[in-house]
């Protein structure tokens, strides 16, 4: 543990040694400003992704095909809200206020995962999101349970425990469709066609175009490179697609006997960067919904504060 004593170079050296020895950093400990900023950016972006991520699936709650599927979807979307809140709570320990995080999301300054800027056109998309998007999220998030920043690691442990239900319900939904009627199977294949590449892009730019990776690895914020995590996801998902009897939409996909890995074709990074910059098919709608919900809820937040103040005043009068 490092506290404020000595020159900032000394503190930085002790910090690096402490973290390199797999020790945790807690909110009150001294930390380099870059470490704090990186965490605020990453954790708040992660929280925003959970919150905006409620929209594509929330779109199908009223139209779920059975009560069972509706109850599952409601529970899943509620979990996403919970995950967003665990993460906001972790980010707030870095002395960055929730009001500021919300403002940054709504002004477009803060980003969220670009995958949520794609629309959910059919019911099969709910299955594809659970299977692919939550599947990719799990691969990304399991190493974060060992992140050097204590509050983030603890939040991620909770998230990962709950996320496995999300992936399994999605796979089960895809299984029901792909083993159903020809029309249902076609719907599942169409959803896979549309979600596969955005899911592969979820791991971020390739290693040679990921400038902060080395520092984040040294700080034990990041444990594996983008490309390593992506490969893990691909290997795992190709086999799952075979069990679903669906086809991965990539003519170049092939198994490399030597490495034991599945190799994919070219990723369209132009599309990825366009979506990151806010030009995704549903980007404007997602942001508009968020801003409207925030504005529409203003009177509720104000009324709750007024009510709490009135209750306090009432309790005081009784006491006097």
């Amino acid at each position, binding site marked *: *543990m*490092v*506290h*404020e*004593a000595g020159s900032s170079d000394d503190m930085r050296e002790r910090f690096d040694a402490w973290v390199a020895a797999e020790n945790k950093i*807690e*909110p*009150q*400990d*001294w930390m380099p400003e870059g470490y704090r900023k990186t965490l605020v950016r990453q954790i708040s972006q992660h929280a925003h992704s959970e919150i905006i991520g409620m929209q594509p699936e929330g779109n199908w709650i009223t139209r779920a095909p059975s009560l069972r599927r509706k109850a599952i979807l409601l*529970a899943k979307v*509620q*979990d996403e809200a*919970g995950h967003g*809140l*665990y993460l906001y*709570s*972790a980010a*707030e*320990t870095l*002395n*960055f*206020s*929730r*009001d500021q995080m*919300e403002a940054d999301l709504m002004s477009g300054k803060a980003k969220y995962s670009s995958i949520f800027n794609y629309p959910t056109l059919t019911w099969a998309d709910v299955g594809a999101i659970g299977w692919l998007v939550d599947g990719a999220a799990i691969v990304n998030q399991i190493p974060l349970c060992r992140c050097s920043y204590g509050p983030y690691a*603890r*939040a991620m442990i909770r998230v990962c425990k*709950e996320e496995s239900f999300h992936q399994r319900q999605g796979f089960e939904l895809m299984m029901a469709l792909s083993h159903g009627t020809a029309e249902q199977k076609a719907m599942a294949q169409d959803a896979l066609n549309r979600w596969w590449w955005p899911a592969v892009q979820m791991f971020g730019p390739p290693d040679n175009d990921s400038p902060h990776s080395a520092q984040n690895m040294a700080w034990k914020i990041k444990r594996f490179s983008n490309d390593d995590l992506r490969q893990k996801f691909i290997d795992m998902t190709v086999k799952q697609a075979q069990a679903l009897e669906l086809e991965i939409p990539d003519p170049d996909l092939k198994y490399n006997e030597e490495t034991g890995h599945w190799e994919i074709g070219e990723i369209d990074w132009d599309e990825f960067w366009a979506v990151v910059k806010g030009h995704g098919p549903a980007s404007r709608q997602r942001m508009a919904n968020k801003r409207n919900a925030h504005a529409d809820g*203003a009177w509720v*937040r*104000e009324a*709750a*504060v007024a*009510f*709490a103040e009135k*209750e*306090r005043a009432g309790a005081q009068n009784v006491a006097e």
Partner: protein
Amino acid sequence: MRDPANKNGGWPLFEVFIRSKQGLSHVHAGSLHAADAKMAIENARDVYTRRNEGTSIWVVPSEAISASAPEDKGELFDPADSKIYRHPTFYTVPDDVECL
């Protein structure tokens, strides 16, 4: 401990502690914003106990918590390092004497 100005739409921050079952103590689970303590408990139910994680909830306004400072760690905790006679393993006793 935390930024005292940290509000969310005027709602202050509360720390949440959950007792997972009778017989165990409340353990810190995280924090959340709420207009008052009653709402904080209701929200904590939804945020931190969706899967039977709790049988009881405590909420405490974050600004009411006083914490020891990291730089006082040595002063507070190092004195215990040298008092190894506080542990039963410090004492040498014959192997064949029971119930010691």
